[in-house]
């Protein structure tokens, strides 16, 4: 469960760039919540705040009941993040990359090895687990990054544009994995600037534009709210432009 109330963040010398302004929404457990908005809408900044890397100027947010500022390190133990920057250690194998993060989360010995094995298996990486990630394809790298984010079995999972640069097969595989995680009762927050992505996967959609929430609800609710025929038309009507429709 992620609760966001009035979250605000500005950048620039005098705080003149309002990246996120008074954002309020909730992402329940056992559901995939989509953050939809064109590039520059504030999705990455919002996720970085929830991941406790960026301190908000105002407002508050809680992940699993823990405050993202006061309890930042406790929050980090309970979230898995696939951030905008998702570089792997190219000289390490897939297994070593995942194992490293497991160790940083306090897993050791057989428990760590078993967890790493299971994840690599589930993500279809078993065959290349002991190869250096240097020569991996975008899709393979993405899977390793996901395994790394999930190694400590987090309750809440934040994904920043996870489908960027993936081919269609990888996207489909990713969707399956995210649905499986939803089935385990995890709280998933998924950001994208591509409407079709969000529509295909998310139970609830939060539409961001220029740092603000312009609408939130299920796909049907959004269509009703905007008074349009399709979600696509609703999206255009709500954000006031056709950005982000190119799939």
């Amino acid at each position: 469960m992620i609760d966001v109330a009035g979250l605000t963040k500005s950048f620039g010398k005098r705080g003149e760039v309002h990246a996120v302004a008074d954002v309020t929404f909730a992402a329940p457990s056992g559901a995939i919540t989509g953050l939809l908005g064109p590039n520059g809408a504030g999705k990455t900044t919002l996720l970085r705040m929830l991941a406790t890397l960026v301190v908000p100027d105002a407002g508050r947010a809680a992940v699993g009941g823990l405050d993202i500022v006061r309890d930042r390190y406790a929050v980090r133990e309970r979230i898995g993040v696939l951030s905008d920057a998702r570089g792997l250690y190219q000289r390490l194998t897939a297994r070593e990359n995942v194992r490293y993060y497991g160790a940083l989360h306090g897993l050791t010995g057989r428990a760590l090895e078993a967890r790493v094995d299971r994840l690599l298996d589930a993500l279809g990486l078993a065959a290349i687990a002991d190869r250096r990630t240097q020569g991996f394809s975008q899709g393979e790298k993405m899977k390793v990054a996901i395994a790394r984010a999930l190694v400590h079995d987090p309750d809440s999972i934040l994904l920043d544009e996870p489908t960027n640069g993936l081919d269609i097969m990888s996207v489909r595989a990713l969707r399956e994995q995210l649905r499986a995680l939803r089935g385990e009762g995890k709280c998933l927050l998924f950001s994208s600037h591509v409407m079709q992505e969000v529509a295909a996967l998310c139970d609830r959609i939060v539409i961001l534009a220029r740092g603000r929430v312009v609408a939130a609800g299920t796909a049907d609710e959004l269509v009703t709210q905007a008074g349009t025929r399709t979600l696509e038309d609703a999206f255009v009507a709500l954000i006031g432009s056709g950005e982000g429709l190119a799939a």
Partner: protein
Amino acid sequence: MTAAVQPTRPPQASPVSRVLAIARKELTDMFRDRRTAMVTLVSAIAAGPIFLILIFNLIANQADRARDLRLPVVGREHAPALAAFLERQQVTLTDAPADYEAQIRRGDLDVVLVVDPTFARDAASGKPATVRLVFDRSRDRARPLIDQATQLLRGYNRLWGQQRLVLRGVAGSVASPLIVEDVDLATPQQSGALVLFLVAYYGLFASVMGGMAVSLDTTAGERERQSLEPLLMTPARPGEIVAGKWLAASTFNALVVALTLTGFYITLSFAPLPAVGVPFLFGAREFGRFVIVLLPMIALLPAVLLYVGSRARAYREAQANVSVLLFVVSLLPVVQLFLQRKEPDWIALVPVSGQYSLLNVALRGEALPWAQLLLSYVTPLVLAAVFLAAVARLISRESILAGK
């Protein structure tokens, strides 16, 4: 509280276990970069031998040249007695080429003896006879020859004068009221100052260079490869991340220094180096003393380099900034060499200079002065702590994320 909510949650890692996990991963990463690791380690162990063999052969050549002096002469026929004297002193006399001055200027000839055409006439009439030594003192290589030729001519002068006095019934010692005897207090180890300088300098240099590539890779490289942000989202605190990286880089640095010293040790103990009269010691004891002196440097340099690396967005940018640092560090010992003065005690507090001074003590075969040694630890260790704290602050800043 965490455990109560989620009983299956793994036990919280301790800060120490996270630091060790980071250090272990960084070391693995360093050695996986085979090319960089091999170049660094192999050049560390090979540097000493190559260096020493070159230097020793250079010195041996100079010594040989000084021993069998070949002296081109102009106007030999004017002073047959002088020529005979020189030949008795094992000097090979040759006829100087006509363009000897140009050859000396070019460095083809080192020194030429010119006998004045009026030599015989002046000598016969009891006037001082003139010979000239033509040389270019700015050439280091020529100096032993110049000195040797000068000394031989002085010797001839003294001998001739004494013979004249004896002919007139005066004891030779009357004309030499002063005898200058050289008493050189340098022990055998203290000679060969150049070799001393180079060994100390190179040992110091190893502690500066050893951790460079890895320190920059683990900071600027981590940022460049976009793996810093995910790392910062783990429970590892910035201080732990910095401590782990520093531990790994220092370990690597220590390895490079140890290999460099091993190279020196093996070469000086076992290699058939030409005997050049600089039998300074570099045995197991000196090896140990070098390590003790260099420890603060092994700890400090990675801290500084981690800082430089963290300020840069990319590896190349960091490299450019490091070259300024390297310039300063490599210049200090050279300045000390040229000052040629007894160093003040506070020099121990100056990083690099303090270490260089102590390394020289070790190479002269003397025991390390403990007070000075302790003093030499102070500044590097304080600075290392300051730099590491600065790196931890840098990577906890939000702006570190902006530099994509």
